[in-house]
Each structure stands twice: as C-alpha cells, then as structure tokens.
C-alpha cells in the first residue's frame, strides 16, 4: 500500500463508507480517549505536569546540539557506537553496513515510528536481511502486508474477526469455532515469535527518549518485546530521531509517566527499559555490540522555524484518539506514516508541503488536539500556519474566491446583497434536508467533499434589526 497524502479526500470518503472501520474506531479511539482523560485527571495536577513535560522537551530542543554531543560522549565512553544519519537513505545504509560487518541475516524489531518513516524493513529485506516485527500489532500489520494506522495502537482499524482470519489463512492457526478469543490469538503469536527470537542475530529498536546526561536511550513497551529483542541477540541497533533528547533523569521521570497516561491510561507502561551500552563482558545475556543511529531526516529543517514546537512531540497518540476527524476516517486515510493532527503538521514538514497539501485542511481547528497533548503543542496554530504557507499551492480560482469572500465581508452592503441572492438561489441546489450538496461551477470544489448549510431566509442582520426595533418599542428605551 503506497503512501500518498495528496489523496486524503478520496481516501477519507472511502473510509467513511467502511462500516467495519467505523465500528473499530468507535470502540477503540473513543475508549482510548476516555481512558486518557481519566488517567490524567488522577494525577497531582494535569496542567502543571503538562507544562513540566513541555518545559523538559523545550529545554531539550533549546540545547539540542550540546545535548547530542553529550549523548555521544556518554554512549561512546561505555563502549557503544554512535552514528549520525542525515536522511533515510544514509540511516538505512548504516544499518545494512552493521549487518554486513557482523554477518547478520535475521533481525527482530520492536515498534518504532522512525523506522516506519525510513522504510527500513523493505530496504533491509531488499538487501537480503530478514526482519520480523515483534510488537503484536505491528506483527499483525506485517502478516497483513499493510500499514499501521496509529502511532501507538497499530491495528486500531481492525476487528478481531479480521485478525483471526489472517492468522488462520497466513500462519496456519487452528480456526476458532465459536467465539474468537484474543487470548488464544495472542498465545499463538507468542509461540510463533518466541522461536524466532532465538534464531535472530540482532535486534532493532527505536527510542522514546534520549536522556542526555547519561546518554541513556529509553524505550517503553507493554509486551516486553523490545527487552527480549535486545537480551538474546548479540547486536542491538537503536534508531532514534535527533529531536528525542531531554536533559535529565528528572525530566524523564515526568515524561515517561505522562506518556503512558496519555497513550494508554496506564501509570507506567509495563516495561520502561533504559539502555546505557553493550553488556559488560561478564554478563550472561544482553548485546555484545550496541549501536545508536541519530537520525535527522528533515528534523533540522523544522528546527528554528515557527514549527519548531512540533519537534517536542512524544508520540503518545492522544491527539489522534481525541480528534473528530481521526475518529471518523482512521489513520490510513491520511496516507502518511504519522497520521492524525500531529501527523498533519509533521508530514508536510518532513515530506514537503507539496506532497501533503490536503493534510493541514484535514482539521476543524476545534483545538481538542492541543487540549489533549501532554506537552501542550499548539497544533491548531501550526495547521493554520501551514494553510497560510500553502496559499501558493492552491488553484488561482480558489484564491480568487477567498479574496472575494474576504472583500465582501468588509463591505456590509455587498455582503447583504450577496446573501440575499444566495438565499434565493440555494433552494435550487439543496437536498431534502435543505443542505447544499453540489454547488455549480468552481463552487463545486467545496461541496465535493463537504455539505454546505442552507442559507437562511432571514439573516442575522435582518433578525437583529427586527428584534432591536421591537424591543425598543416594548421597553420604551
């Protein structure tokens, strides 16, 4: 399934017709949103913690070059190796070079958004290195040969019946006769994957945070897959975006908890794993070789611009779960590695605005995303900024229309006349409920994917004049 964010409207329309997707999202996204709200409310003060977490991320960004150097120094001192990658191709080639140096043929991978962004797995497989996703959701996605639809819960778009069918058909699981039991399917996946953990000769992980003062890579999982995928195998490669740095362990203590609460409503994820370096020589398990790849891939282009704040994102997924657009169209419609509100900001910034023109408009600017964000990122403001940047990308007709609209708004007489004409004509284009579904000519671009409310026969101006006059008569003032 190719990614194409420019086909958002088409993909969203299709998603809206998909009853199974609707059922899955109604259940999963809304439940996740409610769980987050409850969990943050149970803290010592959600707003203070939000600002505390935000401060940690902003300090990380403010001192980014120095903190990255500190990180490198710390990791190197413990016998790890730090590599720097300017773009996806450079990062992928570095992983491949590590595989070739150590003769690695088969890797287990835990969930990581940056590796999705790099398209690392297809790259490695093309070069003869087999990769297996070990997070249950990502494993299902890999077997399905599809894409994750959420940055925390990759199979939020799926119902258990679909997963059952997949496991039976592709992996030869014994079909379940009556009720489909997620427990049985999970046990099946555990056994299937367990064998392969032992066969693998390296593990790949992402990183949720880099704690600069000790050069520690922090990863959170609930399943234990990242920890197991770096305990049995001789080589561990951690691939992390350069923006993930935070200065101190105190910052980590705040963020690892608000991350868990915002993502899944837990107080902490089950395994908050912290990597300092390769195993010491007398240790009985753990990797002998430890590599950290620091990936730029467009981040330094965002750094220092009006969109810098987007780099503070901790990838909890709360803005997806709470977004009325995401709740209805799901993650795939965005045609991007990072879906949802934060995705609509970072996708255009990372891939180029021309490759994601509809995404800044895939929002009602209701502000729910900002309210949900554990580091208070002003997503609506940045979406507006991107819309402004995109003016040049829009059709001249659209721009002309918007200019005319703006001009008529500042000329009351013209505005009223226009409204009266529109009201008189709107009957000709409205559906049974009065809504306008297909406007003529260039106006049709609006109604192609949206309804337009009917023009009222009486305007607010008229109503106001009538009421004001009536009132003054009755009250005598």
């Amino acid at each position, binding site marked *: 399934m190719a990614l194409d964010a420019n086909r958002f409207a088409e993909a969203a329309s299709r998603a809206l017709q998909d009853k199974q997707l609707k059922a899955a999202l109604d259940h*999963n996204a809304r439940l996740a949103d409610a769980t987050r709200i409850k969990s943050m409310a149970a803290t*010592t003060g959600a707003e203070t*913690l939000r600002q505390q977490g935000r*401060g*940690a991320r*902003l*300090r990380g960004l403010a001192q980014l*070059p120095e903190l990255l150097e500190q990180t490198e120094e710390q990791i190197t001192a413990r016998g790890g190796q730090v*590599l*720097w990658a*300017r773009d996806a191709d*450079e990062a992928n080639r570095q992983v491949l070079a590590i595989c070739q140096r150590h003769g690695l043929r088969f890797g287990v991978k835990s969930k990581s958004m940056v590796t999705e962004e790099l398209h690392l797995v297809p790259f490695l497989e093309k070069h003869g290195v087999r990769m297996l996703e*070990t*997070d*249950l*959701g990502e494993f299902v996605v890999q077997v399905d040969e599809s894409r994750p639809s959420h940055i925390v*819960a990759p*199979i939020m778009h799926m119902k*258990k019946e679909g997963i059952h069918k997949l496991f039976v058909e592709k992996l030869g699981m014994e079909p379940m006769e009556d009720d489909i039991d*997620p*427990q049985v399917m*999970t046990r099946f*996946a*555990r056994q299937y994957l*367990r064998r392969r*953990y*032992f066969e693998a000769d390296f593990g790949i992980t992402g990183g949720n945070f880099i704690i600069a003062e*000790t050069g520690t890579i922090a990863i959170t999982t609930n399943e*234990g897959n990242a*920890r*197991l995928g770096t*305990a049995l195998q001789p080589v561990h490669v951690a691939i992390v975006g*350069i923006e993930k740095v935070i*200065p101190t*362990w*105190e910052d*980590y*203590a*705040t963020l690892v908890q608000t991350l868990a609460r915002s993502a*899944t409503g837990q*107080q902490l*994820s*089950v*395994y908050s*794993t*912290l*990597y*300092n370096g*390769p*195993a010491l020589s*007398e*240790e*009985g*398990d753990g990797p002998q070789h430890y590599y950290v790849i620091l990936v730029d891939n467009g981040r*330094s282009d965002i*750094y*220092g*611009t*009006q969109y*810098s704040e987007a780099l503070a994102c901790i990838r909890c997924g709360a803005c997806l779960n709470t977004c009325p657009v995401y709740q209805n169209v799901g993650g795939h419609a965005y045609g991007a590695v990072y879906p949802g509100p934060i995705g609509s900001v970072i996708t255009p910034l990372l891939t180029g605005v021309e490759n994601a023109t509809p995404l800044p408009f895939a929002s009602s600017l209701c502000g729910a995303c900002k309210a949900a964000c554990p580091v208070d990122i002003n997503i609506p403001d940045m979406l507006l900024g991107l819309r402004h940047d995109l003016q040049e990308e829009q059709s001249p007709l659209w721009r002309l229309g918007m200019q005319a609209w703006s001009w008529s708004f500042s000329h009351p007489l013209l505005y009223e006349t226009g409204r009266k004409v529109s009201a008189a004509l709107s009957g000709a284009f409205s559906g049974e409920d009065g809504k306008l579904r297909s406007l003529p000519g260039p106006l049709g671009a609006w109604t192609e994917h949206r309804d337009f409310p009917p023009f009222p026969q009486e305007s607010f101006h008229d109503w106001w004049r009538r009421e004001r006059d009536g009132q003054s008569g009755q009250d005598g003032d």
Partner: protein
Amino acid sequence: MSEAREQILGRLRDARDGLPDAPAAPERYQPVSVLDDESAEGLLSRFRTELEGLQGEVYVVPDEEAALDQVLTLLAESGARHALTWDWPHIPLPGLAHALGEVGIDTLQATPDNREACEAAEAGISGADAAIAATGSLVVSTAPGMGRLATLLPPQHIVLLRQERLLPSLEAWVAQQRADDLAHLGTRSNLCIITGPSRTADIEKNLVLGVHGPGRLQVVVVEGES
C-alpha cells in the same frame, strides 16, 4: 568525525535563534502522583494495591524462613521444575539454592551458551534494586550475575524484595540516584522499570497477559530490616 555529524550539528546551531523560549528547569519537580501515607506500612499497602490492580501478585512475609516457604509454595502451585535465577548472592534470600535443591527443582543461570536451557525454565527468580509504591513498579538493573533473561523469559517471574527497598515514587527513586551522582546508573548496561505482568491490548483493547514477557509476576516482600 563524520561529515554527517558536523553537518547536522552545524545546521542546528545555525537555526537555533528561531526556537521558542524554554523555561528553566524547576527547582523542585512536581511528582506525577503522591502517597497520603509514606510510612513503611503506607508504602507497602500502596505497592500491593497498585500491583494487584495490574494483576500482579504480592506476598508479604515476616522473615526469611517464611519467604523460603512462600517461594516453594508458588513454584509448587505452578508446577515449575526448572528455575532460571540470578546468581545467589544477588537474591536477598540466603538458603534459597539449598531449599530449591531439596525439593528437586533444577536451577540455572544464563550464560551466552545456554539459551535453549534457559528457554525450558518455567520460572525466573530475581531480586530488585528498588520498588515503587505509587505505580506498583520494580526497578531491576543488569550486572554480572543479574541478567535480563531471568526477569523476562519464563512465564512466571518471582521477585524477592526487602521491604526497606520500597520507595514512594519514581521521582523519589531518581532523587536517590541523583544523591549518588547517578554513579549506580552509570555502571549498568541496562535498567528496566517493570510495572506489572507483560500485556497487550492491541486486539480491540482486550487485555491479554504474558505476550512476550512473564504473564505472572509474583513479588515476595520480606518485612523489616535486613
């Protein structure tokens, strides 16, 4: 130094003027959750409530003899015959090796060459650096004789914990490390804060335990001072 490194750092340094202002680090960080009662009993009671809420199990015993009995009972209940353990000096329960041997339970420690034998173990036995009451968590760190696999590979994980190692919050644990100048952290290749049994809710938000790590997490707390 690599060209990529210099270029990335150079680009960041050139662009940093446009960044939003960052607030100074707080003098005192607000903890995410606090305990009403930080007495020894308060910590234990909260730890138990939190971990049991995650379907972990907590057994509080008055002394080492009772702790030995408790471990044997847990192993008898699960029917485990092979236990993957930390090296004995790192498990705060003298006499455990002997007690397990007496009831015929095979024990082994992980080495780079005995992976298959480790996989056959039905139970793992370890200690812990610390436990965190507010979240029901255990902190484990690696060192020679204190491996990852005993806490991870077998379906049943038994943790021996001295009550004095209970701390109120994650923030308190970080403060303890800070007081030590982060020296302890610096000597460990890996740490893990374990909060409950391994779990997933990927399939329609249904909770399933024991995905890749242990589905049963049993903490035996030995009361009093050591």
